[in-house]
Structure formats: structure tokens, C-alpha cells
């Protein structure tokens, strides 16, 4: 299977200043696969995404991206290898209009969606394209944060809590978008609190606890491993 492996994280440790947050994360994502990192608040899921992009403090271990070691590269070089990041806090810029936000991330690969395709996918953003980025509603900001990394041709999407704090109808919409992206062969890492949102989308799940992978669950095992999930996630 290693031929189709897109991302391999091995023995990844990460620090914020003095505090040691990741204690040896190990997981892999295959090309075109959607995996989900589940776990409680503070388990280290967001930090894992940030560490992949070099946004934490010191890191050790290995991050192989498409066969290339990237742990020593600066953030922008990693992104240029085809990584798109949708942060938990959404990261919409107040000093940019909606459309400027959408056009900000530079091209990092071929085959990204065009502006028209994105506006078809998210008609709200077209209506509000001249509004200041942070004047958009929470749901619109989330769509914008997703949309702007689909334009760039990034093949690996790191999506952090995209369903958090949004109305059910918008969560459903984002679920449809992620399903479409899977059809288009994007490789996706979903960090989710919302198990019901992640379960139908993810091909595999990793349970993260104390900065490590505590368990791996295949899609077909979800039913039989309900007890374990309950124990880890408290759902």
C-alpha cells in the first residue's frame, strides 16, 4: 500500500514553548483517502495539523509528504507541496474583502477549482464577495475558509473542526462538499469533535489521546467498536 501513501507521520513530537503537546503521533493517510482524527479537547488533534504545517514550536520525528521529508521545511514550502489548511478559528482576514480572502492563497498545484465553480458551490460567497471578510456570518466564514483552499490545487486538505458551532443546514452543506471532494480524489484529514459528522465521511478514524494515537478504527468496525468509542470520546 505504501505506493499510494500520501502522508506518513511517525513519532511526531511537538512543543509550544516548554510544553510538550504531541508525544509521538503515528499515522498514515493514503492518496484519495479521508481520515478523521477524533478525540477530546486538548488531546492534540489541532496541534497535529499545525505541526504538519510547521506552525507549532519545536518538532521532532518525521513527516513524509508524498515521499518527501518535510519536518525541516518552513511553513510556506510545505504548503507549496500541495497542502491546504482550514484552521479551527477559520482565519478569515478582517483587512481583506470576501473575494480577496478567497483569492489570497497562491496556486500550489494544478486542478484547483475555478472561482466560478466555487461560487456555484457556495452561492452566498458570491453575493457577499465585496463585504469585509469578518463581516460574514459564522457559516459564511466557514465556507470561505474551505473554499479558499480548494482554488489552489492543494491535494491534501487539513480541515479543523469545520462543523463546529454551525447551524445543522450548513453542517449538512459542508458534508456534501466534503463528499464531492472525495469523489474528486482529494486527500483529507478531518479533525472533528462531532462524531456523527465525521463517521459517514471518514474511511478510517484515529482516536487521539494525550498527544498520541490511542486506536485506529476502520469504517466497517464502527458498529462493533461502539463501546470503545464511547469510552474515548464520551459520546
Amino acid at each position, binding site marked *: 500500500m505504501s505506493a499510494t501513501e500520501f502522508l506518513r507521520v511517525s513519532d511526531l513530537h511537538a512543543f509550544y514553548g516548554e510544553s510538550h503537546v504531541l508525544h509521538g503521533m503515528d499515522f498514515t493517510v493514503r492518496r484519495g483517502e479521508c481520515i478523521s482524527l477524533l478525540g477530546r479537547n486538548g488531546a492534540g488533534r489541532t496541534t497535529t495539523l499545525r505541526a504538519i504545517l510547521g506552525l507549532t514550536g519545536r518538532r521532532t520525528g518525521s513527516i513524509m509528504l508524498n515521499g518527501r521529508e518535510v519536518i525541516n521545511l518552513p511553513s510556506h514550502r510545505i504548503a507549496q507541496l500541495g497542502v491546504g489548511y482550514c484552521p479551527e478559528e477559520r482565519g478569515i482576514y478582517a*483587512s481583506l474583502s470576501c473575494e*480577496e480572502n478567497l483569492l489570497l*492563497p497562491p496556486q500550489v498545484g494544478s486542478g484547483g477549482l475555478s472561482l466560478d465553480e466555487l461560487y456555484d458551490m457556495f452561492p452566498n460567497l458570491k453575493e457577499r464577495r465585496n463585504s469585509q471578510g469578518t463581516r460574514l456570518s459564522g457559516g459564511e466564514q466557514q465556507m470561505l475558509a474551505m473554499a479558499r483552499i480548494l482554488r489552489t490545487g492543494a491535494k491534501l486538505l487539513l480541515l479543523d473542526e469545520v462543523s463546529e458551532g454551525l447551524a445543522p443546514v450548513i453542517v449538512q452543506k459542508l458534508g456534501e462538499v466534503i463528499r464531492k471532494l472525495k469523489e474528486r480524489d482529494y486527500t483529507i484529514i478531518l479533525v472533528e469533535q462531532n462524531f456523527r459528522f465525521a463517521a459517514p465521511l471518514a474511511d478510517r478514524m484515529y482516536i487521539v489521546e494525550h498527544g498520541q494515537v490511542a486506536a485506529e478504527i476502520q469504517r466497517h468496525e464502527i458498529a462493533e467498536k461502539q463501546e470503545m468509542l464511547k469510552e474515548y470520546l464520551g459520546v
Partner: protein
Amino acid sequence: MSEIFGIPIQAFMGQLMLGLVNGSFYAMLSLGLAVIFGMLNIINFAHGALYMVGAFMAWLGLTYLDLGYWQALVLAPLCVGVFGVLIERTMLQWLYKLDHLYGLLLTFGLALVLEGLFINIFGVSGQPYSIPDEFSGAFNLGFMFLPKYRAWVIVSSLVVCFATWYVIEKTRLGAYLRAATENPKLTQAFGINVPLMVMLTYGFGAALAGFAGVLAAPAIQVSPLMGSNLIIVVFAVVVIGGMGSILGSILTGIGLGVIEGLTKVFYAEASSTVVFIIMAIVLMIRPAGLFGKEK
């Protein structure tokens, strides 16, 4: 003779023009400070010194290399810009993670070193730099004579300021700059080379100061202290306009130059303090400055 508020119109218009000329320098310098502060979070106390270096380059070029005004207007800002890039690479880049105060101290120290060096070599008295032939003489506007060089200073600095504003607010490159100013880490995680932009921003701010220095050379005598004389007012301008606001620093710079000029007409004793009185009032009413956003 016609009068405005009991003041002869010639005197009034003359001071207004002088105010606009001073305001043009305030605007160019505070614009550079604002751009640098936004991107690097550093209060660049070396700005006045870089302005002085720009003026000296023009003078040195003319005196020793026979380079004319127009060549100096292009080459001096370039050299000061490269000098800025060197400062950023060798010194400033190590300070971003520390408190603002360290950047302020370093640049203040740099300003003292530069001034000291120039005083040592050239002394404190000014070096004359004559107005280029194209700009000798004056326009007769009917109600007053407008020296051509003053008109050129006002026009060229307005063009440079508004071109800078346009690039930052309306173009793709400007969007990168604004994004990197607001959230540098995330912007870098989108694949934008933020450290390179930071370096070029400092270089650009320095070049802007150098450009202002060349413009100033024929208008003011070229002296090692010309920067520190001006920079205190420029800092007041930046505080009044609001730290980090591009348009704010341009408009405030020009506006305060004019107010200062007109104060000379009506109550000359207050002309050197009026800017600071305005600063105190603005800080009481709007602590973030006229155009600044509260953080």
C-alpha cells in the same frame, strides 16, 4: 492688498505652501513608519537617520561622482533600500519574537551610530545642494509666487504616497501584505513567503525614507542632524494618524504640515508645539489615533 483674517494673502498662501511641503515630508516618512510597523511590529527609530543617509547620498553623488539630481533620485533610495534589507537580515530578524521595545532600542541605537558617523566625517554644519536647473525659478500664480521646486516636492511625494496606498489596498501584492500583517503564520501556511515579504517591506520603508531625503536635499541643507530634527514631529504624526494605518499616515502628515504652517501665520510662537498639542488632544479622545483601530 487683499487679506484673509487680517493677514496679507501672500503671507497666508506662502505659509500654506511651506506647510504643504513639510507635510509632504511628514507624509512620506510616516507612511514608511506605518508600513514597517504593520509588518514587522517594530517602531523604526532609524527612520530619520535613513532619510539623512538618503540626502547625503545625493550630496556625495553630486560632489564626488558627478551624479545629478535625477540619478540621485533613483540611486539613493535604491542604496538606502539595500542598506535597509541588510539591517533587517543581520539584526532585526532576530528580534521579532521579543517585545517591541527591543526593536525600538536597536533602531534607536542604529540612528545614533549613523548620525555619529556622519557628524564625525562631515561635521554638523549643513552641506549645500543646489536646486536642479529644471526647477529654478517660480510660477507666478497671480496672487503669489510658487517656487518650482516646492511644487515638485509636493506633487512627487503625493504621487509616491498614493501609489504606495494603491498598491497596498488595491492589488494582489497588497492583499498578501495586508494578510501577512494581520496573521503572518497563517499567511505563511498558505504558501506565501512571509519572511521574504518582511525583509522587502523594511527595505521599501527605508527606500521611501531615502527618497524623501533626496527630495529634501535641495530644500533643506544636507546635515547629519536633519533626520533627528524631523523625526520627532513624524512620530507625533504617526501617533495622531494611528499606528499602522496607511491612508491615515498620509492624510495626517499632510494635514499637520498645513496646520503647522498656518499656525506660523496666526500665532508663530505656537508653531513648533501645535503638533504636540494636537497629539495630546487626539490621544485623550481617540487613544488609537484618528484612523487607527483599537486592538
